[in-house]
């Protein structure tokens, strides 16, 4: 048994949507955390550290949310750290927690990702704040928004890989069809290709229906060292590989602005640690902030060399060679930023363990699954590889 083993003993997600029920981010964090602790079958007092993923204080009007949530969750006294890496915040937190366990500095660590990205501010205000995800002094001050930057990167990508408007519509339909089977999802829609292609441009070639929504919600994990894992959870999925990397902040400083090179680098690191190849991955939750970004991600991760044809051949559908975003992804399940990367790991772990939503659960779960996030236009990348537990 390796001392580096990190067991996913607890995993939970709240619904992702625009809250209209009077609840706030403290409620969602507590709901996800309590359910993860219950699944882990441990006492709260056994948790030695808390990592909180939250992208922006402007969403919650709360600095130092890790200390606030430590109190809210009954963890006062533990080390509490807030992690932020734009859209990658969730997996930055997961990886910090897992590394602490690998360093044998804790028995169990809680990871909570949460953001009120939908209900606390207007959509225009949130989008303006997202503009600060990019170099404020250069790209940011042009007034460019996230969608436009992604659109420019995607155009460089599609010139090489010959994806099409049909490709964008197919990703959109596929992810949101999956979301229809996920009761926690924000956008369970079944738009036709005609409806997608008729939706208004946000930043060409991206139309409104090619974009992920702004969502509220939380996700939580309890990660444990093997020697401290309760017997009842000893066969739970494990985190076996992690990688993180960065790319030039300026799209124009990259040798190829269409390629997500940081993701490729992070994936190589994660595969090396896991001792597997990208082609061994047969299930992935990838960062689909926009429909084209999913195709760019799959290519960068080494899950395809022909994104357009593999997509149209059904390789990424629930019954395909490598199902992608069974949760619905950001486009379908939703995107409360800090929660996103944590939720991806939750989804992968639950599918590997065979306890995901019944209509999405794979009857024969694969050996390995991949959770992939990034911040900026893949300026910060973080990917995590999970495997089935010891008994599988």
């Amino acid at each position: 048994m390796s001392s580096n083993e990190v067991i996913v003993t607890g995993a939970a997600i709240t619904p992702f949507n625009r809250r209209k029920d009077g609840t706030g981010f403290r409620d969602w964090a507590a709901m996800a955390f309590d359910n993860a602790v219950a699944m882990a079958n441990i006492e709260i007092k056994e948790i030695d550290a808390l990592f909180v993923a939250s992208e922006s204080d402007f969403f919650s009007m709360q600095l130092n949310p890790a200390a606030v949530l430590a109190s809210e969750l009954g963890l006062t006294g533990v080390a509490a750290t807030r992690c932020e890496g734009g859209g990658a915040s969730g997996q930055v937190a997961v990886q910090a927690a897992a590394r602490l366990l690998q360093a044998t500095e804790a028995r169990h660590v809680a990871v909570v990702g949460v953001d009120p990205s939908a209900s606390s501010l207007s959509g225009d205000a949130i989008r303006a704040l997202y503009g600060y995800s990019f170099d404020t002094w250069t790209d940011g001050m042009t007034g460019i928004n996230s969608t436009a930057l992604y659109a420019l990167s995607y155009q460089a990508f599609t010139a090489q890989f010959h994806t099409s408007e049909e490709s964008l519509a197919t990703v959109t339909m596929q992810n949101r069809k999956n979301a229809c089977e996920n009761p926690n999802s924000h956008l369970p829609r079944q738009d036709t290709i005609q409806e997608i292609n008729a939706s208004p441009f946000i930043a060409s070639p991206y139309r409104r229906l090619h974009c992920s929504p702004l969502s509220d919600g939380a996700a939580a994990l309890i990660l444990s060292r093997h020697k401290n894992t309760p017997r009842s959870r000893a066969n739970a999925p494990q985190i076996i590989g992690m990688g993180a990397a960065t790319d030039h902040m300026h799209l124009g400083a990259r040798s190829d602005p269409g390629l997500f090179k940081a993701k490729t680098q992070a994936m190589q690191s994660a595969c090396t640690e896991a001792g597997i190849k990208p082609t061994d991955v047969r299930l992935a939750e990838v960062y689909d902030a926009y429909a084209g970004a999913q195709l760019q991600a799959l290519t960068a991760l080494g899950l395809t060399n022909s994104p357009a044809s593999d997509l149209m051949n059904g390789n990424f559908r629930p019954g395909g060679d490598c199902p992608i975003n069974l949760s619905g992804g950001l486009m379908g399940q939703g995107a409360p930023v800090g929660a996103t990367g944590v939720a991806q790991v939750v989804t992968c772990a639950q599918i590997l363990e065979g306890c995901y939503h019944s209509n999405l659960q794979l009857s024969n779960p694969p050996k390995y699954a991949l959770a992939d996030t990034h911040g900026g236009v893949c300026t910060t990348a973080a990917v995590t590889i999970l495997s089935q537990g010891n008994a599988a």
Partner: protein
Amino acid sequence: MIVYQQILNYTLNSGWLTPFVTGLKAGKAKARKCNCCSKVSFPPLRVCLCGSAEGAWQDLSGTGTIIWRTTGPDGDFALVQCDGADTQTIMRLIEFGANVTHGKIIASDTKQPALCLTPNVRTEML
């Protein structure tokens, strides 16, 4: 429910980027030329792609060619190859026709310094 308004007025010091930011306010393109490999970065990179942090400011002509372009309700934006630069930059397009691909940097029409490109034709007419 708590309704809360926060108004913040920032004063941001531009530090080593000051020549670049000052240039933008005047519609000038101040780039950074690497002392080691001679590559020119615009927007300027403090550390060149070759890894050297030794460089000097260099004026560009301020003209550039659109590589990729996007259009939407928030405006037109492009990835632009500025003449004389070895890197590309994001710019806001001002009054750019759909078929125009070359333009010249102009000062932003807002209080913020910003990278804005307008067609050469318009500049010549002025």
